[in-house]
């Protein structure tokens, strides 16, 4: 199994995917068919505490730019983690050299982390 895994190891995932996605599609279709259909304008309006729904800004409105920063930092750390995994798996074989190079790598990424922290990029309410 460790040498060259057969593609057959992935066949069960395909079958499970067919079952689960099939079930989901079936539910969505069935839900549309089984329920009553007595629509009116107010019922179809988006929910908003009894007032006329706020129109969505066409062509892009204001957006809490904080989310952009979060997603960007997520990418940075995600890539770090992706490098950490093969390193961890082969740690015993890489010996001390492996430890040193990863410490260097983490230290460099932590520079970015420390900078963002200092500038207040991790404060949500700022």
């Amino acid at each position, binding site marked *: 199994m460790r040498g060259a895994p057969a593609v057959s190891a992935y066949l069960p995932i395909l079958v499970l995917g067919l079952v689960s996605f099939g079930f989901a599609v079936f539910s969505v279709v069935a839900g549309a068919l089984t329920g009553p259909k007595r629509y009116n304008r107010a019922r179809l309006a988006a*929910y908003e505490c009894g007032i006329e729904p706020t129109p969505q800004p066409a062509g892009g409105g204001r957006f809490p730019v904080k989310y952009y920063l979060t997603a960007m930092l997520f990418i940075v750390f995600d890539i770090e983690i992706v490098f950490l995994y093969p390193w961890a798996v082969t740690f015993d074989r890489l010996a001390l050299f492996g430890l040193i190079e990863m410490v260097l790598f983490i230290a460099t990424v932590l520079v970015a982390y420390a900078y963002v922290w200092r500038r207040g990029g991790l404060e949500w309410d700022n």
Partner: protein
Amino acid sequence: MTFNDPFGIIVVKVLGIFVLLVLMTLFTIWAERRVVSRMQHRIGPNRTGPQGLLQSLMDGIKLALKEDITPTGAHKAVFLLAPIISTGPAFLAFAVIPFGPEVSMFGHTTPLQLTDFPVSVLYVLAVASVGIYGIVLAGWSSNSTYSLLGGLRSSAQMISYEIAMGLSFVAVFLYSGSMSTSQIIEKQTSVWFILLLLPSFAIYAISMVGETNRAPFDLPEAEGELVGGFHTEYSSLKFALFFLAEYVNMVTVSAMATTLFLGGWRAPWPLSTWAGANTGWVPFVWWLCKVFAFLFVFIWLRGTLPRMRYDQFMRFGWKVLIPSSICWLLIVATARALRNNSTMDTRGLLVTAAVILLVVVGISAVVERQRIAATERDEAERGEREARSRRLFPTPHAPAAASAAALEPGEAHDA
């Protein structure tokens, strides 16, 4: 272990997993309602079936008979697609979870696990990240402000805690030398990783609650702020699918915690001395017990802890969980390197380091709390002094002012 099952066995296993997950969802919803009721001195659902066990099934049927609403202005195709994208991956993650050792099934000897490959833990992460799409798209396509904000919030929360979760895996991989779930369980034959890598387990346990949007981290569904969050506009079976996905995800993260830290299907210590405890179908019982223990903790948390504020939650994830998991990771790696390069027994060292790390985190939490309490006391004293000097007390409407206003209603109209 090999995974070269004939197609018939694969189908049986797939259906088994599917039914197991649906049953566990139905059971967990019921258990949650009953346990939380108990904690709040209520009774909870006890009418449908024995002890109300059929309640969640009936609720599901009721949802199917409800009106299926697609709000005006919603983006139809994406609106329909979102619950499907949310549910499918939730089930898919279970493909690599080991339920037990090799068993005999219709005359075939096969592991009690659908499949496994060298990167199966990573596969769970990948599938989970596809599942987040369902939430983002549901929020976007509903064309409602609450849904949009709820979707953004949930996904930002999930990706923030995914980092801590991913980092907590690294220590496990260091010790198991593999990313395949069955190998990781094999490496826990003598000692479970929770004992060796307690901080990793703690970090994983916290981030798994954040990852599944459960209390006290259930901010996307903060009713007072966002109504229902990303699924505000969903009704009927489409809503049921989101609900199902949430509970299946709970079961998945619990099963991952069991696999990575609690020895998977392996029997706990006093029982493991019995020779039959780790063979055949019996280990499935241990697996179920461990997963239900986690699910109970989920319910317990919900019954006990108040919801966190969003900025506190994000600060905790980015400023506490991530740095402490990187710290712990470096400690583990150093200990491992020491063990490899000398004859030192690093297990004791590792446990000591874990205890020290936990104590440091604990002490800093206490110190921080005392600092906050001290400033609060100072401010309160100052506030009281100020109030005394201004002869002001924190009281509701002064009766004199109110009655004066009542005499002149016209004035307020013009204001």
